[in-house]
């Protein structure tokens, strides 16, 4: 296989503590090797005057599956004027907030992202998720099946049966080819089936008579008993409601007393996602305010938690979540079209278009909160940049978010352009923050941090020998003076991107579709006849499909990358 040497770039690699030193990165057989290990035939990529980082890792985005596709179907207007014709190495691609699978792969790659996680896979429709993942070129992907409203989980955890919960998780990860345990509005989505919701962690789920508190702690216990690469990944109760930060703190505190147990170097037991939507004060939209400080003060001192931001990008976008009751609430607010689906025994989903307008005070405050979380993070290895794509904005805006985080001047300009800037400043902290994140901190928040949280720091997020050759060169010279816009421009279209040793982007253009892999976790547990009987029984009694038509068979996952865990005892 080809050898490469990426020469003379300013390297930012948190896994080795390299903070912008000039260094050469050598590649052989798809892996990073010591410079002395490549022959003189190695192809040289000149990165002098440019920034070099590992490929970025997306920890939370909605990019594949039935909910995303329903968004595409019911929003043809999202595709208007966005199409790019095919080129020699890329297919026609379009869509803005819900791009086609092809555009999803191309756009991530052009920004220097080489791995992405689909954040909510309904197990019943896992085949659809994997069909779309297969059609998303270049980037490695995994998907998180949702567990927080699943009837098996609710029943086992109500009876405190952790071992059975583990056996079920193990079975479902394999059946759905899933990567991690995702929880969306624990209990609340099931309650939505009864026209209700769970807005605190102690609201009981109707019929099942279990609380979100019990669901979350039970799943953390099971996750750590299994030793999965990622922790429980949670979208908390009461998303998007004024005053919800207390529910957020209550949920985060559930991690106290748990310790991470795994062989992957992961240290957290709980990942709290799109925290922006969960850091709200006030008791109505009239006195709505930022509680980012209260939330981040807790996150900063609680070492066994990781978070991602869910930054609002000020765009017209498409919200979509397994939090069915929230989407109903949203359509009542903005009166735009609403799609809603119940997924038998497992979950639900809703979709509503949303315009984050710079002329609406609430949206301006939301914009500030997302950035504040990142700017208040004491440990950038535990706070990651996301937009909860497409919920707070499309992932294609990451370069703009990076600009805002790296430049107080860019933030000031944005604040001044808001219609209600004075009122917004009063309700937030953003105007008083002068911190500007460094390229090293950006590499922590977009590469090394998420890779570690996912239990993948042995292969992703860094440039140490032995790691996958996922390498990005940005046309950005950290030693030269620059304008904020230069940051956005450089991160929007990388000068060079390599994915597992294959050049995929050159000068911002796609040159290859790479060797895309699907990551999933095979967790081996002791034989558990009771759980196997329960599964058979549920399929016979309730599911509208047979078990044989449920499993994601291997042809849906043509290029798997399986992470194995042995939880037998």
């Amino acid at each position, binding site marked *: 296989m080809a050898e490469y040497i990426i020469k003379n770039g300013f390297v930012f690699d948190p896994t080795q503590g390299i903070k912008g030193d000039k260094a050469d990165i050598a590649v052989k057989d798809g892996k990073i090797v010591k410079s002395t290990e490549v022959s003189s035939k190695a192809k040289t990529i000149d990165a002098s005057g440019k920034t070099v980082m590992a490929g970025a890792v997306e920890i939370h985005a909605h990019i594949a599956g039935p909910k995303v596709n329903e968004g595409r179907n*019911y*929003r*043809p*207007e*999202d595709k*208007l004027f966005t199409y790019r*014709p*095919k080129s020699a190495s890329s297919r*026609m691609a379009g869509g803005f907030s819900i791009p086609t699978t092809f555009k999803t792969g191309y756009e991530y790659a052009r920004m220097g992202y080489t791995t992405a996680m689909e954040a909510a896979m309904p197990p019943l429709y896992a085949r659809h998720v994997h069909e779309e993942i297969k059609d998303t070129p270049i980037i490695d992907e995994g998907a998180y099946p949702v567990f927080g409203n699943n009837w098996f989980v609710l029943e086992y955890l109500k009876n405190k049966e952790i071992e059975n919960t583990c056996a079920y998780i193990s079975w479902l990860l394999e059946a759905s080819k899933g990567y991690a345990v995702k929880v969306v509005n624990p209990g609340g989505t099931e309650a939505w089936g009864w026209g209700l919701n769970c807005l605190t962690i102690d609201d009981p789920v109707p019929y099942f008579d279990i609380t979100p508190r019990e669901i979350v702690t039970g799943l953390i216990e099971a996750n750590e008993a299994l030793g999965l690469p990622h922790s429980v990944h949670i979208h908390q109760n009461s998303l998007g409601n004024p005053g919800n930060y207390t529910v957020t703190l209550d949920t985060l505190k559930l991690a106290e007393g748990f310790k991470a147990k795994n062989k992957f170097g992961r240290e957290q037991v709980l990942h709290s996602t799109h925290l922006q939507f969960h850091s709200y004060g006030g008791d109505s939209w009239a006195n709505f305010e930022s509680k980012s400080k209260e939330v981040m003060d807790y996150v900063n001192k609680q070492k066994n938690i990781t978070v991602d931001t869910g930054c609002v990008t000020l765009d017209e976008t498409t919200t979509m979540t397994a939090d069915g009751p929230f989407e109903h609430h949203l359509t009542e607010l903005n*009166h*735009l*079209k609403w799609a809603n689906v119940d997924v038998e025994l497992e979950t639900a989903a809703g979709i509503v278009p949303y315009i984050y307008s710079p002329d609406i005070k609430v949206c301006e405050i939301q914009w500030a909160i997302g950035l504040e979380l990142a700017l208040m993070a004491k440990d950038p290895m535990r706070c990651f940049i996301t937009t909860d794509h497409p919920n707070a904005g499309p992932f294609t805006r990451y370069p703009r978010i990076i600009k805002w985080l790296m430049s107080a001047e860019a933030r000031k300009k944005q604040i001044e352009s808001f219609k209600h800037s004075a009122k917004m400043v009063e309700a937030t902290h953003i105007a008083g923050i002068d911190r500007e994140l460094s390229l090293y901190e950006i590499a922590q928040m977009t590469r090394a941090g998420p890779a570690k949280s996912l239990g993948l720091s042995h292969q992703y997020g860094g440039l140490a020998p032995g790691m996958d050759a996922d390498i990005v060169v940005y046309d950005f010279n950290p030693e030269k003076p620059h304008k904020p816009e230069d940051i956005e421009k450089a991160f929007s279209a990388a000068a060079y991107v390599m994915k597992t040793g294959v050049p995929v982007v050159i000068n911002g253009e796609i040159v290859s579709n790479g060797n895309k892999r699907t990551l999933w976790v095979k967790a081996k547990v002791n034989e558990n006849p009771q759980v196997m009987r329960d599964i058979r029984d549920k399929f016979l009694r309730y599911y509208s499909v047979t078990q044989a038509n449920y499993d994601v068979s291997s042809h849906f996952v043509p290029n798997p990358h399986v992470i194995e865990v042995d939880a037998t005892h």
Partner: protein
Amino acid sequence: METVTITMKNQPKLYLEADNISPDKFAGKKASEIAALHAYEGREQTTLGKYFEIAGEGGATAADTRIVVKGDVSRVKYIGMKMSAGEVLVEQSPDMYTGAWMQGGKLIVKGSVDSFAGIGMKGGEFLVEGNAGDYLGAAYRGDWRGMQGGLIRVKGNAGSDIGYFMNGGTIIVHGNSDVHVGTHMEGGRIIVKGNAPSKVGGQMVGGEIFVYGTIDVMMPGFKYVQDEEVEVDGEKALFALYHGDTGERHPKRKGQIVYGKLYLKI
């Protein structure tokens, strides 16, 4: 004002997406540069010069540019798309999306237009001497933001779903329309001087619809209010006013509920 005349010389095999035929795009360009502007035939990118003979050159700005389109353009879409000023005259009958998202200037079609003409229109004047197809002055598929301003006048008949999600501006149809007039309408004015068979003003929130002829079946969500004299298209006439669609959510203005208004000529 400079005039560019483009004449169909080679019919496309597939439909031609020619959104560059607009004064904004032709302004400041010589014939050879206009010929090099892109168009799409199916998935292939091609140029206007492959299909059209081009004579004359654009003015300095869109406002100084007039385009005359000659020949059979029944396979050409998007003529006048997003034009903001100047003039376009189409001598025969173009395909769909003529004058789509038009913002200003004047667009005249001597023949008829197919569906989606003037969708999302924001301003300007659009005259069709023949008939119009479906979704005249409507919103793009899926969108809730329809025609917002400007004037569309159709001398003949119009198809179904005209003024779908209309927010502003005026549509005048001198002949008849087909079903679904002003569905989801929130503002603006639709005038049908002939008949409108049914589904007139369904889910209408605001705006005005005038029908001079007959409506075979009224929507159940409309209730008669009073007779009113109104000036429409330069002449006064007496109409029966109905409020609707009462099955829909209606905003309040100054304490009063705002309804859509349906006027039937007496």
